[in-house]
């Protein structure tokens, strides 16, 4: 499959996976391997001071082999998000980050005003910012204009598994954007990922659909195949839809004519 370029980085896989909600770090690592992803999202949290010997994600998923994409999950203000990503940059030493500023506990819907505010500052500080956003073409255009490296419109609510109810918006956003468009949030099963890729999206981000499957490792592989299939469909250009049948076998030479 063709490589996925975002900002100054090039990845082999167009499937980005989240590392949350797994039973343990081993399962996380196994799912990443099965998914073929070389870019994974991570959160930034306090070290356990009272038990500093407890295993860390880095002990299982090597950041030298798999690129960590630090996120700002759980941040509700631009100030909180900036604080997290400045720490992430110092910890990892890389500039590529995922910004998300939430507006509501129940829906985890992005607060676009705060998101845009934070994105502007991060771009000015030299970050390569990928942005979780609403599936609003205007917001996506504003983000692109201020210099982010990718927009990540939600398919549906985070962790909901509801797929992409508003495909038309995703299609509009993809058509107008010169930067990568990544469907983030809402992917529930392989067909959702295929749809996102068939619409022309550059990548998809999947977490809950893999981590909460009965067999996460097998689902990780399914998502890998879905993203490849969807991308190949998009590149090959699907047939036109018509209203009536069109026989695949030739009428000429039939023995019962």
């Amino acid at each position, binding site marked *: 499959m063709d490589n996925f370029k975002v900002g100054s980085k090039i990845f082999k896989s167009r499937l980005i996976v*989240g*590392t*949350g*909600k*797994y039973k343990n*770090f081993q399962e*996380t690592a196994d799912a990443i391997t099965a998914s073929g992803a070389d870019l994974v*999202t*991570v*959160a*930034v*949290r*306090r*070290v356990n*001071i009272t038990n*500093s*010997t407890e295993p*860390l*994600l*880095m002990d299982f998923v090597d*950041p030298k082999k798999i690129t*960590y994409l*630090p*996120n700002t*999950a759980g941040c509700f203000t631009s100030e909180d998000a900036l*604080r997290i990503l*400045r*720490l*992430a*940059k*110092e*910890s*990892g030493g890389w500039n590529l980050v995922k910004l998300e500023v939430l507006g509501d506990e129940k829906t985890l819907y992005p607060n676009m005003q705060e998101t845009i505010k934070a994105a502007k500052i991060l771009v000015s500080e030299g970050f390569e910012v990928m942005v979780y956003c609403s599936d609003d073409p205007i917001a996506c255009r504003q983000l692109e204009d201020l210099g982010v490296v990718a927009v990540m419109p939600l398919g549906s609510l*985070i*962790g909901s598994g509801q797929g992409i109810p508003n495909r038309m918006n995703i299609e509009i956003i993809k058509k107008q954007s010169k930067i990568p468009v990544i469907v983030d949030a809402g992917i529930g099963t392989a067909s959702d990922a295929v749809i996102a890729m068939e619409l022309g999206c550059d990548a998809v*981000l999947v*977490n*809950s659909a893999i981590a909460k499957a009965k067999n996460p490792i097998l689902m990780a592989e399914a998502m890998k195949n879905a993203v490849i299939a969807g991308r190949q469909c998009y590149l090959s250009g699907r047939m036109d839809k018509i209203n009536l049948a069109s026989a695949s076998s030739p009428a000429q030479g039939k023995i019962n004519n």
Partner: protein
Amino acid sequence: MIKIQLNGEIQELSKRHNIDELLKIFSIDPNKVAVELNRTVVSKDKYITTYVSNQDVVEIVTFIGGG
């Protein structure tokens, strides 16, 4: 004796330590964390020269699983 707030909890230290010493006291691998002192990130090359003072607020963070 000084008191600092470390990751939300009060910790007593026998004297002023630099960040490098502080990480050693709590057995934390400096390569796997980032440190913030009074809301400002401390870069790794400043761990030796940056000392914590009484009443300072220190955050030590790492990457965990997340979407």
